[in-house]
Protein backbone atom coordinates (compact mmCIF):
# COMPACT_ATOMS: atom_id res chain seq x y z
CA UNK A 1 0.00 0.00 0.00
CA UNK A 2 1.23 3.50 -0.87
CA UNK A 3 2.34 5.58 2.10
CA UNK A 4 0.23 8.49 3.23
CA UNK A 5 3.06 10.80 2.26
CA UNK A 6 3.15 9.45 -1.31
CA UNK A 7 -0.61 9.68 -1.72
CA UNK A 8 -0.80 13.26 -0.53
CA UNK A 9 2.24 14.41 -2.49
CA UNK A 10 0.68 13.17 -5.71
CA UNK A 11 -1.97 15.90 -5.32
CA UNK A 12 0.51 18.68 -4.56
CA UNK A 13 0.10 20.50 -7.86
CA UNK A 14 -3.68 20.40 -7.88
CA UNK A 15 -5.15 23.73 -6.78
CA UNK A 16 -7.38 23.10 -3.80
CA UNK A 17 -6.36 19.46 -3.93
CA UNK A 18 -6.38 18.84 -0.18
CA UNK A 19 -9.88 17.34 -0.20
CA UNK A 20 -9.01 15.11 -3.15
CA UNK A 21 -5.90 14.00 -1.22
CA UNK A 22 -8.04 13.17 1.81
CA UNK A 23 -10.42 11.13 -0.33
CA UNK A 24 -7.46 9.18 -1.73
CA UNK A 25 -6.01 8.51 1.71
CA UNK A 26 -9.37 7.40 3.00
CA UNK A 27 -9.84 5.13 0.01
CA UNK A 28 -6.60 3.36 0.91
CA UNK A 29 -6.91 3.38 4.71
CA UNK A 30 -10.68 3.67 5.28
CA UNK A 31 -10.12 6.76 7.43
CA UNK A 32 -7.60 9.56 7.80
CA UNK A 33 -4.78 8.33 10.08
CA UNK A 34 -3.35 11.02 12.35
CA UNK A 35 -0.27 11.87 10.27
CA UNK A 36 -2.52 12.72 7.31
CA UNK A 37 -3.32 16.13 8.77
CA UNK A 38 0.31 17.17 9.33
CA UNK A 39 1.44 15.94 5.93
CA UNK A 40 -1.48 17.62 4.17
CA UNK A 41 -0.91 20.88 6.05
CA UNK A 42 2.71 20.98 4.94
CA UNK A 43 1.99 19.91 1.37
CA UNK A 44 -0.75 22.45 0.78
CA UNK A 45 0.80 25.26 2.80
CA UNK A 46 -1.92 25.66 5.44
CA UNK A 47 -1.81 25.40 9.21
CA UNK A 48 -2.53 22.05 10.85
CA UNK A 49 -5.58 23.64 12.44
CA UNK A 50 -6.91 24.53 9.00
CA UNK A 51 -6.11 21.11 7.59
CA UNK A 52 -7.93 19.54 10.54
CA UNK A 53 -10.82 21.96 10.11
CA UNK A 54 -11.25 20.85 6.52
CA UNK A 55 -11.06 17.14 7.38
CA UNK A 56 -13.68 17.42 10.11
CA UNK A 57 -16.10 19.59 8.13
CA UNK A 58 -17.04 16.78 5.77
CA UNK A 59 -19.07 13.92 7.18
CA UNK A 60 -17.80 11.57 4.50
CA UNK A 61 -14.26 11.93 5.84
CA UNK A 62 -13.37 10.39 9.17
CA UNK A 63 -10.42 11.25 11.42
CA UNK A 64 -11.37 8.40 13.75
CA UNK A 65 -10.27 4.85 13.00
CA UNK A 66 -13.01 2.88 11.30
CA UNK A 67 -13.69 -0.71 10.52
CA UNK A 68 -12.86 -2.54 7.32
CA UNK A 69 -16.53 -2.27 6.34
CA UNK A 70 -18.23 1.06 6.89
CA UNK A 71 -21.99 0.65 6.89
CA UNK A 72 -23.88 3.90 6.45
CA UNK A 73 -27.61 3.88 7.09
CA UNK A 74 -29.73 6.58 5.50
CA UNK A 75 -32.25 8.17 7.85
CA UNK A 76 -33.58 10.99 5.61
CA UNK A 77 -37.37 11.38 5.45
CA UNK A 78 -38.07 8.96 2.53
CA UNK A 79 -35.97 6.23 4.17
CA UNK A 80 -37.39 7.18 7.57
CA UNK A 81 -40.97 6.39 6.56
CA UNK A 82 -39.84 3.23 4.77
CA UNK A 83 -38.61 1.75 8.03
CA UNK A 84 -35.05 3.03 8.46
CA UNK A 85 -35.35 2.98 12.23
CA UNK A 86 -36.10 -0.74 12.41
CA UNK A 87 -33.26 -1.40 10.01
CA UNK A 88 -30.82 0.62 12.09
CA UNK A 89 -31.90 -1.31 15.20
CA UNK A 90 -31.39 -4.60 13.35
CA UNK A 91 -27.81 -3.67 12.46
CA UNK A 92 -27.12 -2.48 16.00
CA UNK A 93 -28.46 -5.74 17.42
CA UNK A 94 -26.61 -7.94 14.94
CA UNK A 95 -23.28 -6.21 15.47
CA UNK A 96 -23.82 -5.39 19.16
CA UNK A 97 -22.70 -1.80 18.68
CA UNK A 98 -24.49 1.53 18.43
CA UNK A 99 -24.50 3.82 15.39
CA UNK A 100 -21.21 5.70 15.39
CA UNK A 101 -19.25 2.78 16.83
CA UNK A 102 -16.85 0.16 15.48
CA UNK A 103 -16.86 -3.53 16.42
CA UNK A 104 -14.06 -4.68 18.73
CA UNK A 105 -12.51 -6.80 15.98
CA UNK A 106 -12.24 -3.72 13.76
CA UNK A 107 -14.40 -5.25 11.06
CA UNK A 108 -17.53 -3.08 11.01
CA UNK A 109 -18.36 0.55 11.62
CA UNK A 110 -21.97 1.71 11.73
CA UNK A 111 -22.78 5.27 10.76
CA UNK A 112 -25.96 7.25 10.29
CA UNK A 113 -26.14 9.34 7.16
CA UNK A 114 -28.53 11.50 5.20
CA UNK A 115 -29.83 10.67 1.73
CA UNK A 116 -27.36 8.81 -0.47
CA UNK A 117 -29.32 9.41 -3.68
CA UNK A 118 -30.87 5.96 -4.12
CA UNK A 119 -34.36 6.88 -2.94
CA UNK A 120 -36.09 4.77 -5.59
CA UNK A 121 -35.30 1.84 -3.28
CA UNK A 122 -35.86 3.02 0.29
CA UNK A 123 -34.66 2.16 2.84
CA UNK A 124 -31.06 2.30 1.70
CA UNK A 125 -27.69 1.50 3.23
CA UNK A 126 -24.23 1.67 1.75
CA UNK A 127 -21.31 -0.60 2.55
CA UNK A 128 -18.00 1.03 1.61
CA UNK A 129 -20.04 3.32 -0.66
CA UNK A 130 -21.83 0.51 -2.52
CA UNK A 131 -25.59 0.99 -2.15
CA UNK A 132 -27.99 -1.75 -1.05
CA UNK A 133 -31.60 -0.82 -1.70
CA UNK A 134 -35.04 -1.99 -0.52
CA UNK A 135 -33.51 -3.35 2.66
CA UNK A 136 -35.48 -4.96 5.43
CA UNK A 137 -34.34 -6.12 8.87
CA UNK A 138 -34.53 -9.80 7.91
CA UNK A 139 -31.85 -9.26 5.26
CA UNK A 140 -29.29 -7.96 7.74
CA UNK A 141 -27.53 -11.29 8.48
CA UNK A 142 -27.23 -12.08 4.77
CA UNK A 143 -25.80 -8.65 3.99
CA UNK A 144 -23.29 -8.91 6.82
CA UNK A 145 -22.27 -12.34 5.57
CA UNK A 146 -21.25 -10.73 2.26
CA UNK A 147 -18.54 -8.82 4.11
CA UNK A 148 -15.65 -11.21 4.37
Amino acid sequence: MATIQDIILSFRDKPGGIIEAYHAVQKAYNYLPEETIAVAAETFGVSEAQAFGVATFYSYLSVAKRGKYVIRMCESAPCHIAGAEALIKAFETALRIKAGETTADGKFTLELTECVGQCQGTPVITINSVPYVNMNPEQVPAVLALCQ
Partner: protein
Amino acid sequence: MIEEKRIVLRNADLINPEKIEDYLQAGGYQGLVKARSMSRPDLIAEIKKSNLRGRGGAAFNCGLKWSFVPADAQVSYVVCNFDEGEPGTYKDRIIVQKDPQLLLEGMAICGHAVNSKQGYIYCRGEYPYVVELLNLAIDQARGKGILGDFNIEVRMGGGAYVCGEETALIESIEGHRGEPRFKPPFPGVAGLWAQPTVVNNVETFSNLPSIVLNGAEWFAAIGAPNYPGTKVLTLTGDVANRVSIEVPTTATLREVIYDFGGGIKEGKKFKAVQVGGTSGGFIPESMLDTPIDFDSMRSIGATLGTGAVFVMDETRDIVDITTRIAKFFEHESCGKCNPCREGTFRAYEIMRKINKGQASVQDIENLTLLSQVMEKACLCGLGQAAPSPILTTLKHFYPEYQARLQIQ
Protein backbone atom coordinates in the same frame (compact mmCIF):
# COMPACT_ATOMS: atom_id res chain seq x y z
CA MET B 1 -53.11 11.50 -20.03
CA ILE B 2 -49.93 13.52 -20.21
CA GLU B 3 -46.94 11.98 -21.98
CA GLU B 4 -43.30 11.96 -21.02
CA LYS B 5 -41.18 14.36 -23.05
CA ARG B 6 -37.52 13.53 -23.16
CA ILE B 7 -34.83 16.14 -23.71
CA VAL B 8 -32.12 15.38 -21.18
CA LEU B 9 -33.06 11.69 -21.02
CA ARG B 10 -33.47 11.31 -24.77
CA ASN B 11 -30.64 8.79 -25.00
CA ALA B 12 -31.42 7.02 -21.75
CA ASP B 13 -31.34 3.24 -22.14
CA LEU B 14 -30.88 3.66 -25.90
CA ILE B 15 -27.12 4.13 -25.92
CA ASN B 16 -24.25 2.64 -23.95
CA PRO B 17 -23.14 5.41 -21.57
CA GLU B 18 -19.62 4.00 -21.55
CA LYS B 19 -19.17 4.45 -25.30
CA ILE B 20 -18.73 7.88 -26.81
CA GLU B 21 -19.26 6.31 -30.26
CA ASP B 22 -22.87 5.59 -29.32
CA TYR B 23 -23.36 9.17 -28.26
CA LEU B 24 -21.85 10.48 -31.49
CA GLN B 25 -24.01 8.18 -33.53
CA ALA B 26 -27.08 9.53 -31.75
CA GLY B 27 -26.19 13.04 -32.90
CA GLY B 28 -24.00 13.90 -29.94
CA TYR B 29 -21.72 16.95 -30.01
CA GLN B 30 -23.53 18.55 -32.96
CA GLY B 31 -24.83 21.17 -30.53
CA LEU B 32 -21.27 22.01 -29.55
CA VAL B 33 -20.16 22.26 -33.18
CA LYS B 34 -23.02 24.65 -33.86
CA ALA B 35 -22.34 26.66 -30.70
CA ARG B 36 -18.71 27.10 -31.68
CA SER B 37 -19.79 28.44 -35.05
CA MET B 38 -21.71 31.19 -33.26
CA SER B 39 -20.29 34.34 -31.73
CA ARG B 40 -20.28 34.42 -27.94
CA PRO B 41 -22.87 37.21 -27.61
CA ASP B 42 -25.17 35.43 -30.08
CA LEU B 43 -24.88 32.17 -28.19
CA ILE B 44 -25.64 33.83 -24.86
CA ALA B 45 -28.56 35.72 -26.40
CA GLU B 46 -29.96 32.48 -27.81
CA ILE B 47 -29.83 30.71 -24.44
CA LYS B 48 -31.35 33.73 -22.74
CA LYS B 49 -34.17 33.79 -25.27
CA SER B 50 -34.94 30.10 -24.74
CA ASN B 51 -35.80 31.07 -21.16
CA LEU B 52 -34.02 28.01 -19.80
CA ARG B 53 -34.10 28.49 -16.04
CA GLY B 54 -31.75 26.78 -13.62
CA ARG B 55 -32.78 23.25 -12.63
CA GLY B 56 -30.85 23.30 -9.34
CA GLY B 57 -33.60 25.04 -7.41
CA ALA B 58 -33.38 28.80 -7.82
CA ALA B 59 -34.68 28.88 -11.42
CA PHE B 60 -32.49 31.76 -12.55
CA ASN B 61 -32.39 32.47 -16.30
CA CYS B 62 -29.35 30.57 -17.53
CA GLY B 63 -28.30 32.89 -20.37
CA LEU B 64 -28.72 35.93 -18.14
CA LYS B 65 -26.39 34.35 -15.56
CA TRP B 66 -23.76 33.77 -18.25
CA SER B 67 -24.02 37.37 -19.39
CA PHE B 68 -22.65 38.55 -16.02
CA VAL B 69 -19.23 37.14 -16.86
CA PRO B 70 -17.22 40.10 -18.16
CA ALA B 71 -16.54 39.70 -21.88
CA ASP B 72 -12.90 40.62 -21.41
CA ALA B 73 -12.22 38.21 -18.52
CA GLN B 74 -8.80 36.60 -18.96
CA VAL B 75 -9.65 33.55 -16.86
CA SER B 76 -13.09 32.15 -16.11
CA TYR B 77 -14.49 28.86 -14.90
CA VAL B 78 -17.46 26.65 -15.67
CA VAL B 79 -18.64 24.69 -12.65
CA CYS B 80 -21.21 21.93 -12.69
CA ASN B 81 -23.16 21.49 -9.49
CA PHE B 82 -23.53 17.73 -9.10
CA ASP B 83 -23.76 17.79 -5.32
CA GLU B 84 -27.34 16.52 -5.31
CA GLY B 85 -27.65 16.46 -1.54
CA GLU B 86 -31.35 17.26 -1.29
CA PRO B 87 -32.99 14.18 0.28
CA GLY B 88 -35.35 12.39 -2.08
CA THR B 89 -33.43 13.56 -5.15
CA TYR B 90 -31.51 11.32 -7.51
CA LYS B 91 -32.24 12.91 -10.89
CA ASP B 92 -28.75 14.20 -11.60
CA ARG B 93 -27.35 10.74 -10.94
CA ILE B 94 -29.83 9.26 -13.42
CA ILE B 95 -29.01 11.89 -16.05
CA VAL B 96 -25.27 11.32 -15.76
CA GLN B 97 -25.42 7.54 -15.44
CA LYS B 98 -27.58 7.29 -18.57
CA ASP B 99 -25.69 9.82 -20.69
CA PRO B 100 -22.50 11.37 -19.29
CA GLN B 101 -21.35 12.85 -22.61
CA LEU B 102 -24.47 15.04 -22.72
CA LEU B 103 -23.32 16.85 -19.59
CA LEU B 104 -19.79 17.30 -20.96
CA GLU B 105 -21.20 18.72 -24.19
CA GLY B 106 -23.40 21.15 -22.25
CA MET B 107 -20.47 22.33 -20.17
CA ALA B 108 -18.32 22.81 -23.28
CA ILE B 109 -21.08 24.93 -24.84
CA CYS B 110 -21.07 27.11 -21.74
CA GLY B 111 -17.26 27.18 -21.91
CA HIS B 112 -17.47 28.64 -25.38
CA ALA B 113 -20.07 31.22 -24.33
CA VAL B 114 -18.03 32.60 -21.44
CA ASN B 115 -14.61 31.96 -22.96
CA SER B 116 -13.55 29.46 -20.32
CA LYS B 117 -10.84 26.85 -20.69
CA GLN B 118 -11.50 25.00 -17.46
CA GLY B 119 -14.57 23.24 -16.17
CA TYR B 120 -15.13 21.44 -12.88
CA ILE B 121 -17.78 18.90 -12.01
CA TYR B 122 -18.39 18.88 -8.27
CA CYS B 123 -19.86 15.42 -7.64
CA ARG B 124 -21.14 14.36 -4.26
CA GLY B 125 -18.94 11.94 -2.32
CA GLU B 126 -21.73 9.37 -2.19
CA TYR B 127 -21.38 8.72 -5.92
CA PRO B 128 -17.82 7.35 -6.40
CA TYR B 129 -19.19 4.95 -9.03
CA VAL B 130 -20.48 7.90 -11.05
CA VAL B 131 -17.15 9.70 -10.73
CA GLU B 132 -15.53 6.70 -12.43
CA LEU B 133 -18.01 6.88 -15.29
CA LEU B 134 -17.45 10.62 -15.68
CA ASN B 135 -13.68 10.22 -15.77
CA LEU B 136 -14.05 7.55 -18.42
CA ALA B 137 -16.33 9.84 -20.45
CA ILE B 138 -13.87 12.74 -20.13
CA ASP B 139 -10.97 10.52 -21.27
CA GLN B 140 -12.96 9.37 -24.30
CA ALA B 141 -13.94 12.91 -25.27
CA ARG B 142 -10.38 14.08 -24.84
CA GLY B 143 -9.11 11.11 -26.85
CA LYS B 144 -11.30 12.17 -29.74
CA GLY B 145 -10.22 15.79 -29.37
CA ILE B 146 -13.85 16.82 -29.18
CA LEU B 147 -13.56 19.20 -26.27
CA GLY B 148 -10.72 21.10 -27.93
CA ASP B 149 -8.90 23.26 -25.41
CA PHE B 150 -11.71 23.03 -22.86
CA ASN B 151 -10.62 20.92 -19.93
CA ILE B 152 -12.97 19.20 -17.45
CA GLU B 153 -11.99 17.87 -14.05
CA VAL B 154 -14.14 16.00 -11.55
CA ARG B 155 -13.93 16.94 -7.87
CA MET B 156 -15.57 14.91 -5.13
CA GLY B 157 -17.63 16.39 -2.33
CA GLY B 158 -17.53 15.16 1.21
CA GLY B 159 -21.08 14.61 2.35
CA ALA B 160 -22.00 18.15 3.38
CA TYR B 161 -25.42 19.25 2.15
CA VAL B 162 -24.51 22.94 2.34
CA CYS B 163 -21.85 22.40 -0.34
CA GLY B 164 -24.65 22.38 -2.90
CA GLU B 165 -24.96 26.12 -2.26
CA GLU B 166 -22.90 27.61 -5.05
CA THR B 167 -20.46 29.70 -3.01
CA ALA B 168 -19.95 26.91 -0.46
CA LEU B 169 -19.28 24.61 -3.40
CA ILE B 170 -16.66 27.03 -4.70
CA GLU B 171 -15.03 27.14 -1.26
CA SER B 172 -14.94 23.35 -1.29
CA ILE B 173 -13.28 23.14 -4.72
CA GLU B 174 -10.69 25.58 -3.40
CA GLY B 175 -9.97 23.06 -0.65
CA HIS B 176 -11.65 24.83 2.24
CA ARG B 177 -14.48 24.08 4.63
CA GLY B 178 -17.66 24.42 2.63
CA GLU B 179 -19.11 27.54 4.19
CA PRO B 180 -21.17 29.91 2.02
CA ARG B 181 -19.76 33.33 1.17
CA PHE B 182 -21.45 36.66 1.53
CA LYS B 183 -22.97 37.85 -1.75
CA PRO B 184 -22.20 40.11 -3.56
CA PRO B 185 -19.86 39.59 -5.23
CA PHE B 186 -21.73 36.89 -7.14
CA PRO B 187 -19.75 34.04 -8.71
CA GLY B 188 -20.30 35.48 -12.20
CA VAL B 189 -18.02 38.33 -11.20
CA ALA B 190 -15.76 36.77 -8.58
CA GLY B 191 -16.16 33.05 -7.96
CA LEU B 192 -13.60 30.27 -8.04
CA TRP B 193 -10.17 31.65 -7.11
CA ALA B 194 -11.81 35.08 -7.35
CA GLN B 195 -12.30 34.68 -11.11
CA PRO B 196 -15.63 34.94 -12.96
CA THR B 197 -17.41 31.61 -12.60
CA VAL B 198 -20.63 30.13 -13.93
CA VAL B 199 -22.25 27.55 -11.66
CA ASN B 200 -25.08 25.51 -13.16
CA ASN B 201 -26.85 22.31 -12.27
CA VAL B 202 -26.33 19.02 -14.15
CA GLU B 203 -29.83 19.14 -15.65
CA THR B 204 -29.38 22.75 -16.76
CA PHE B 205 -26.19 21.91 -18.68
CA SER B 206 -27.76 18.77 -20.12
CA ASN B 207 -30.53 20.82 -21.75
CA LEU B 208 -28.08 22.99 -23.67
CA PRO B 209 -27.09 20.72 -26.59
CA SER B 210 -30.73 20.34 -27.70
CA ILE B 211 -31.47 24.04 -27.27
CA VAL B 212 -28.49 25.09 -29.38
CA LEU B 213 -29.31 22.53 -32.04
CA ASN B 214 -33.07 23.14 -32.24
CA GLY B 215 -33.14 26.82 -31.39
CA ALA B 216 -34.54 28.95 -28.61
CA GLU B 217 -38.09 29.04 -30.01
CA TRP B 218 -38.32 25.27 -30.07
CA PHE B 219 -37.46 25.07 -26.38
CA ALA B 220 -39.55 28.06 -25.29
CA ALA B 221 -42.63 26.43 -26.80
CA ILE B 222 -42.38 23.30 -24.63
CA GLY B 223 -44.17 23.26 -21.28
CA ALA B 224 -45.10 26.34 -19.25
CA PRO B 225 -44.26 29.69 -20.90
CA ASN B 226 -42.60 31.10 -17.75
CA TYR B 227 -40.58 27.98 -17.04
CA PRO B 228 -40.31 26.19 -20.35
CA GLY B 229 -38.95 22.78 -21.14
CA THR B 230 -39.14 19.63 -19.13
CA LYS B 231 -38.28 18.63 -15.60
CA VAL B 232 -36.83 15.39 -14.42
CA LEU B 233 -38.70 14.29 -11.32
CA THR B 234 -37.89 11.57 -8.83
CA LEU B 235 -40.84 9.89 -7.13
CA THR B 236 -40.31 8.53 -3.64
CA GLY B 237 -42.31 7.51 -0.62
CA ASP B 238 -45.74 5.89 -0.82
CA VAL B 239 -46.30 5.90 -4.58
CA ALA B 240 -46.85 2.58 -6.32
CA ASN B 241 -44.02 3.27 -8.79
CA ARG B 242 -40.94 4.92 -7.37
CA VAL B 243 -39.54 6.05 -10.70
CA SER B 244 -37.79 8.95 -12.34
CA ILE B 245 -39.57 10.66 -15.21
CA GLU B 246 -39.08 13.62 -17.51
CA VAL B 247 -42.25 15.61 -18.18
CA PRO B 248 -43.17 18.98 -19.71
CA THR B 249 -43.45 21.59 -16.98
CA THR B 250 -47.20 21.90 -17.57
CA ALA B 251 -47.76 18.50 -15.92
CA THR B 252 -49.76 18.75 -12.70
CA LEU B 253 -48.84 17.10 -9.43
CA ARG B 254 -51.88 14.88 -9.73
CA GLU B 255 -50.77 13.65 -13.14
CA VAL B 256 -47.28 13.03 -11.83
CA ILE B 257 -48.45 11.07 -8.80
CA TYR B 258 -51.33 9.14 -10.38
CA ASP B 259 -50.42 8.73 -14.05
CA PHE B 260 -46.72 8.10 -13.61
CA GLY B 261 -46.48 7.12 -9.96
CA GLY B 262 -49.45 4.77 -10.28
CA GLY B 263 -51.17 6.40 -7.30
CA ILE B 264 -50.74 5.46 -3.68
CA LYS B 265 -49.47 1.97 -3.03
CA GLU B 266 -51.52 -0.74 -1.34
CA GLY B 267 -54.73 1.09 -2.23
CA LYS B 268 -54.31 3.61 0.53
CA LYS B 269 -55.35 7.25 0.37
CA PHE B 270 -53.16 10.25 -0.30
CA LYS B 271 -52.27 12.56 2.57
CA ALA B 272 -49.47 14.89 1.52
CA VAL B 273 -46.68 15.45 -0.96
CA GLN B 274 -43.46 17.32 -0.38
CA VAL B 275 -41.99 18.65 -3.59
CA GLY B 276 -38.47 19.89 -4.17
CA GLY B 277 -36.64 17.92 -1.53
CA THR B 278 -36.50 18.13 2.22
CA SER B 279 -36.47 21.94 2.17
CA GLY B 280 -39.70 22.03 0.15
CA GLY B 281 -43.19 22.77 1.35
CA PHE B 282 -45.84 20.14 2.14
CA ILE B 283 -48.84 20.17 -0.19
CA PRO B 284 -52.32 18.84 0.65
CA GLU B 285 -54.75 17.02 -1.67
CA SER B 286 -56.68 20.21 -2.48
CA MET B 287 -53.69 21.65 -4.35
CA LEU B 288 -52.76 18.65 -6.47
CA ASP B 289 -54.02 20.19 -9.69
CA THR B 290 -51.20 22.73 -9.65
CA PRO B 291 -48.69 22.44 -12.50
CA ILE B 292 -45.14 21.65 -11.45
CA ASP B 293 -43.47 24.69 -13.01
CA PHE B 294 -41.50 26.95 -10.69
CA ASP B 295 -43.92 29.88 -10.59
CA SER B 296 -47.06 27.76 -10.13
CA MET B 297 -45.41 25.94 -7.24
CA ARG B 298 -44.38 29.22 -5.70
CA SER B 299 -47.93 30.55 -5.98
CA ILE B 300 -49.15 27.83 -3.61
CA GLY B 301 -46.34 28.47 -1.13
CA ALA B 302 -44.32 25.46 -2.28
CA THR B 303 -41.25 25.07 -4.49
CA LEU B 304 -40.29 22.95 -7.47
CA GLY B 305 -36.75 22.79 -6.06
CA THR B 306 -34.84 19.80 -7.37
CA GLY B 307 -37.97 18.01 -8.58
CA ALA B 308 -38.10 15.45 -5.79
CA VAL B 309 -41.68 14.27 -5.24
CA PHE B 310 -42.06 12.66 -1.81
CA VAL B 311 -45.51 11.19 -1.34
CA MET B 312 -47.07 10.29 1.99
CA ASP B 313 -50.17 8.13 2.47
CA GLU B 314 -53.01 8.55 4.96
CA THR B 315 -51.23 6.57 7.69
CA ARG B 316 -48.16 8.81 7.83
CA ASP B 317 -47.41 10.94 10.85
CA ILE B 318 -46.78 14.49 9.62
CA VAL B 319 -45.41 15.73 12.95
CA ASP B 320 -42.94 12.86 13.18
CA ILE B 321 -41.74 13.39 9.59
CA THR B 322 -41.35 17.13 10.14
CA THR B 323 -39.35 16.40 13.29
CA ARG B 324 -37.07 14.12 11.28
CA ILE B 325 -36.59 16.89 8.74
CA ALA B 326 -35.79 19.40 11.50
CA LYS B 327 -33.02 17.05 12.62
CA PHE B 328 -31.60 17.10 9.10
CA PHE B 329 -31.24 20.88 9.14
CA GLU B 330 -29.82 20.94 12.65
CA HIS B 331 -27.19 18.47 11.48
CA GLU B 332 -26.40 20.14 8.15
CA SER B 333 -26.28 23.78 9.30
CA CYS B 334 -22.69 24.86 8.71
CA GLY B 335 -22.73 27.12 11.75
CA LYS B 336 -21.43 30.23 10.03
CA CYS B 337 -24.40 32.42 10.88
CA ASN B 338 -26.25 32.63 14.16
CA PRO B 339 -29.92 32.59 13.03
CA CYS B 340 -29.37 29.21 11.37
CA ARG B 341 -26.89 27.62 13.79
CA GLU B 342 -29.07 28.45 16.79
CA GLY B 343 -32.37 28.45 14.90
CA THR B 344 -32.13 24.94 13.45
CA PHE B 345 -31.08 23.69 16.89
CA ARG B 346 -34.08 25.28 18.62
CA ALA B 347 -36.50 24.30 15.86
CA TYR B 348 -35.45 20.67 16.23
CA GLU B 349 -35.73 20.95 20.02
CA ILE B 350 -39.29 22.28 19.85
CA MET B 351 -40.32 19.78 17.16
CA ARG B 352 -39.08 16.94 19.36
CA LYS B 353 -41.07 18.31 22.25
CA ILE B 354 -44.20 18.46 20.11
CA ASN B 355 -43.56 14.99 18.73
CA LYS B 356 -43.34 13.60 22.26
CA GLY B 357 -46.63 15.23 23.22
CA GLN B 358 -45.00 17.59 25.71
CA ALA B 359 -45.52 20.92 23.97
CA SER B 360 -47.98 23.75 24.51
CA VAL B 361 -49.58 26.34 22.24
CA GLN B 362 -46.84 28.70 23.35
CA ASP B 363 -44.23 26.36 21.84
CA ILE B 364 -46.01 26.46 18.50
CA GLU B 365 -46.09 30.26 18.65
CA ASN B 366 -42.38 30.37 19.44
CA LEU B 367 -41.66 27.94 16.60
CA THR B 368 -43.64 30.06 14.16
CA LEU B 369 -41.86 33.25 15.15
CA LEU B 370 -38.48 31.55 15.02
CA SER B 371 -39.28 30.21 11.54
CA GLN B 372 -40.23 33.66 10.29
CA VAL B 373 -37.01 35.16 11.62
CA MET B 374 -34.92 32.42 10.03
CA GLU B 375 -36.51 32.90 6.63
CA LYS B 376 -35.39 36.51 6.68
CA ALA B 377 -32.17 36.52 8.68
CA CYS B 378 -30.23 33.44 7.59
CA LEU B 379 -27.22 33.97 5.35
CA CYS B 380 -27.85 31.25 2.78
CA GLY B 381 -30.68 29.21 1.34
CA LEU B 382 -30.18 26.38 3.80
CA GLY B 383 -31.31 28.38 6.80
CA GLN B 384 -33.82 30.38 4.79
CA ALA B 385 -35.60 27.27 3.53
CA ALA B 386 -35.26 25.14 6.67
CA PRO B 387 -38.52 26.48 8.20
CA SER B 388 -40.56 25.75 5.08
CA PRO B 389 -41.60 22.18 6.03
CA ILE B 390 -42.54 23.42 9.51
CA LEU B 391 -44.58 26.40 8.33
CA THR B 392 -46.38 24.52 5.56
CA THR B 393 -47.30 21.57 7.79
CA LEU B 394 -48.53 23.97 10.48
CA LYS B 395 -50.65 25.60 7.82
CA HIS B 396 -52.09 22.56 6.06
CA PHE B 397 -51.98 19.89 8.77
CA TYR B 398 -52.53 21.83 11.97
CA PRO B 399 -54.96 19.28 13.47
CA GLU B 400 -52.08 16.80 13.63
CA TYR B 401 -50.09 19.27 15.72
CA GLN B 402 -53.10 20.10 17.83
CA ALA B 403 -53.70 16.46 18.66
CA ARG B 404 -50.15 16.31 20.05
CA LEU B 405 -50.36 19.36 22.31
CA GLN B 406 -50.59 19.00 26.05
CA ILE B 407 -53.99 19.89 27.38
CA GLN B 408 -53.55 23.17 29.20
